[in-house]
């Protein structure tokens, strides 16, 4: 019995017990359901063992959406707790745990898999490749992310959630001040999913540099491909810092080292320093692919070439370098001198320049365009002014002297939500709506989509703009309650109303998927949006091998030019297609990593060591495995192709397409 006491929750509440029961019931329900409908074989062969980038992308997408609701539940609880003075919904400890998990879940387990979903779904199609460079590594990346995410999510029912903030600053996150295993969960779960992210970074970089269709030079790549390339370069250079920092933090907590302690030669500020050396590039890892999606969407729905292609690329390259030069602005108030703060103030403000270039490029793309106000376009148009406001308040925060006023207030919270929600979340929802037909074969309902957009936008403005005011009035970040005398009550109530509107908005997305699945027509053709780049030049839904013939590219908008100028994308005879084999090893490694992580969190050493050995055994087996992949023969390709309508840009072109 003593052994099991460590798994108990240190600060239980009825809400947590209810979640425990709910989690248990849902898990049992899922297992029983899969068994009842005899879907285990289907799941194993089609999903768990798949190395197909499209299926992995869809799994990332589903995980991201689930995590969006998990993080959103945290958010609505926080806003409810703060909606009036002296509220008793959550106690201080519970509030700490919720703002910590909200941050980690939203950044690491919602935004990251969301961008990885689009990278996986779109990049190979956009560059005319058949898969990513290392398909099995790609599957391993996903399962490591998934293992990390699940590990983090069980924390609130087994052993207690982390409670030191998503930044998990030491010495607060050290054993002296964070006594539960919560912070161990943080360290290990992020470590496991971080390794997955690093592998995706290498994979995507190699894919884009090595596997582009003939004729697609670097400066003819679509903008989303460019933004993905830059984001993955940043991943490769930034994530190792997180890996090392988390390892040091883990050894501090589990093995009594003194990297981040205040005694015995430790340096307590070093964690904050390392965290933001990774953390600032991380925000550009999130925002650049979002910018890429906006570029695709704005140019498609304005029916114009993207304005200033070269300056777009140049500004992204510049952002990627500058992103490594600004990390101190996250802790201007930690005590370093005016010289350091001035340097980092200037580098921070400098980032506004390339970002401004991009904003103007989007505006000039819209200028004189034939704009179609579809749902993805609404998100993109909403993004431009809202994100600019977030950017401007960012420049305010960048001034280190003024930052002493703003730091750790709700002003900061308003600022970064103001960049992340219109910047990243809107982009993800725009991308979701835009690419949905390509992968699922039907469109999402426009009417419901538009109400989602308005609910989210109005909700967003109501939820976060009041925080600028309360922040300037001195409402501190991460305070679980306040007294009536502070006068923060009414504006916080407004925030809560906004948050509730956003919650309804997110719920309408689920309803939209359900409604469209039931009612949307399936004969949408391969190019429902009249789009411009290669991913629309293949069938819908995309066949396993993506393109029957490898496309020949002449411009940065290959598909548009094929449609308008008669470039022929697909020439020559069909050939056998070489494809990778499925493998169960990545999934099994995910499970082993999960076990290893869990054992380390609770310092149960024997299973931890066994699991670590298991990981190395899997890796060794892989290096001795002889797997040359398989071939899809011409006869099969012809059979598959015959099931679809002809796509545009083929030698034998048909001029009929279905448009909406």
């Amino acid at each position, binding site marked *: 019995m003593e052994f099991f006491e460590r798994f108990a929750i240190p600060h239980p509440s009825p809400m947590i017990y209810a979640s425990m029961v709910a989690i248990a019931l849902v898990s049992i329900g899922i297992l029983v359901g899969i068994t009842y409908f005899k879907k285990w074989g289907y799941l194993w062969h089609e999903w768990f063992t798949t190395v197909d980038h499209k299926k992995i992308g869809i799994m990332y997408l589903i995980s991201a959406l689930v995590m969006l609701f998990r993080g959103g539940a945290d958010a609505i609880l926080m806003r409810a707790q703060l909606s009036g003075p002296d509220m008793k919904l959550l106690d201080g400890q519970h509030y700490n745990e919720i703002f910590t998990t909200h941050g980690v879940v939203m950044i690491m387990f919602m935004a990251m898999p969301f961008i990885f979903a689009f990278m996986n779904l779109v990049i190979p199609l956009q560059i005319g490749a058949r898969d990513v460079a290392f398909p099995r590594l790609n599957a391993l990346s996903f399962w490591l992310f998934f293992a990390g995410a699940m590990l983090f999510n069980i924390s609130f029912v087994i052993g207690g959630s982390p409670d030191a903030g998503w930044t998990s600053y030491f010495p607060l996150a050290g054993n002296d001040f964070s006594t539960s295993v919560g912070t161990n969960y943080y360290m290990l779960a992020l470590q496991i999913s971080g390794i997955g992210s690093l592998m995706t970074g290498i994979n995507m970089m190699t894919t884009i540099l090595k596997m582009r269709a003939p004729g697609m030079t670097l400066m003819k790549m679509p903008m989303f491909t460019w933004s993905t390339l830059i984001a993955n370069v940043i991943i490769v250079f930034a994530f190792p810092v997180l890996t090392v920092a988390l390892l040091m933090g883990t050894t501090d907590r589990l093995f009594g080292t003194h990297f981040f302690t205040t005694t015995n030669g430790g340096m307590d500020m070093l964690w904050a320093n390392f965290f933001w050396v990774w953390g600032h590039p991380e925000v550009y890892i999130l925002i650049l692919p979002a910018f890429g999606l906006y570029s695709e969407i704005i140019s498609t729905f304005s029916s114009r070439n993207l304005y200033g292609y070269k300056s777009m690329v140049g500004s992204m390259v510049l952002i990627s370098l500058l992103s490594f030069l600004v990390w*101190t602005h996250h802790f201007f108030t930690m005590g370093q001198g005016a010289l350091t703060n001035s340097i980092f103030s200037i580098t921070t403000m400098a980032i506004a320049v390339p970002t401004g270039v991009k904003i103007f490029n989007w505006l000039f793309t819209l200028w004189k365009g034939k704009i179609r106000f579809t749902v993805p376009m609404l998100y993109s148009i909403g993004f431009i002014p809202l994100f600019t406001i977030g950017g401007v308040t960012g420049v305010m925060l960048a001034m280190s002297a003024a930052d002493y006023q703003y730091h750790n207030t709700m002003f900061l919270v308003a600022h970064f939500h103001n960049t992340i929600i219109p910047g990243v979340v809107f982009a993800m929802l725009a991308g979701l709506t835009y690419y949905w037909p390509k992968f699922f074969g039907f469109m999402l309902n426009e009417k419901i989509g538009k109400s989602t957009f308005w609910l989210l936008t109005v909700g967003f403005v109501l939820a976060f703009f009041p925080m600028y005011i309360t922040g300037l009035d001195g409402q501190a970040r991460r305070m679980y309650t306040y007294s009536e005398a502070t006068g923060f009550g009414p504006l916080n109530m407004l925030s809560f109303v906004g948050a509730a509107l956003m919650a309804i908005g997110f719920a309408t997305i689920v309803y939209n998927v359900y409604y469209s699945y039931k009612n949307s027509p399936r004969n949408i053709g391969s190019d429902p949006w009249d789009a411009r780049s290669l991913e629309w030049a293949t069938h819908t839904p995309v066949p396993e091998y993506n393109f029957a013939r490898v496309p020949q590219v002449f411009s940065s908008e290959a598909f548009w030019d094929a449609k308008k100028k008669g470039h022929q994308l697909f020439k020559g005879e069909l050939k056998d297609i070489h494809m990778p084999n499925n493998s169960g090893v990545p999934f099994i490694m995910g499970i082993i990593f999960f076990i290893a992580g869990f054992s380390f969190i609770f310092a149960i050493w024997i299973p931890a060591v066994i699991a670590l050995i298991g990981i190395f055994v899997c890796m060794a087996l892989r290096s001795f495995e002889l797997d040359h992949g398989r071939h899809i023969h011409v006869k099969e390709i012809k059979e598959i192709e015959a099931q679809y309508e002809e796509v545009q840009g083929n030698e034998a072109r048909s001029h009929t397409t279905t448009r909406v």
Partner: protein
Amino acid sequence: MKELFPAKQVMGFVFSLILTAVALLVYFTDLSFGVGMTILLVTAFIQAFLQLVVFMHAGESKDGKSIYTTIFYGVIIALITVFGTLLILLWDM
């Protein structure tokens, strides 16, 4: 015969032995901490570069240019991180 003799590799091997010997000297001679660490750092980085160029054949394939670009970029990021950290935590604290 001249083409068969791997002069570059043999020279590289001899040079890396010398570098190792110099690094070892730090342990056996009575140097101050600063001087010792400087010698170790300098020899370590030359050693790593030597291994990369001579024995890991960086620059010999058609990707040579991008390999050096990546290394150069990595070195710059590493230097920024190290010296930025020193500035923040020690020199300007």
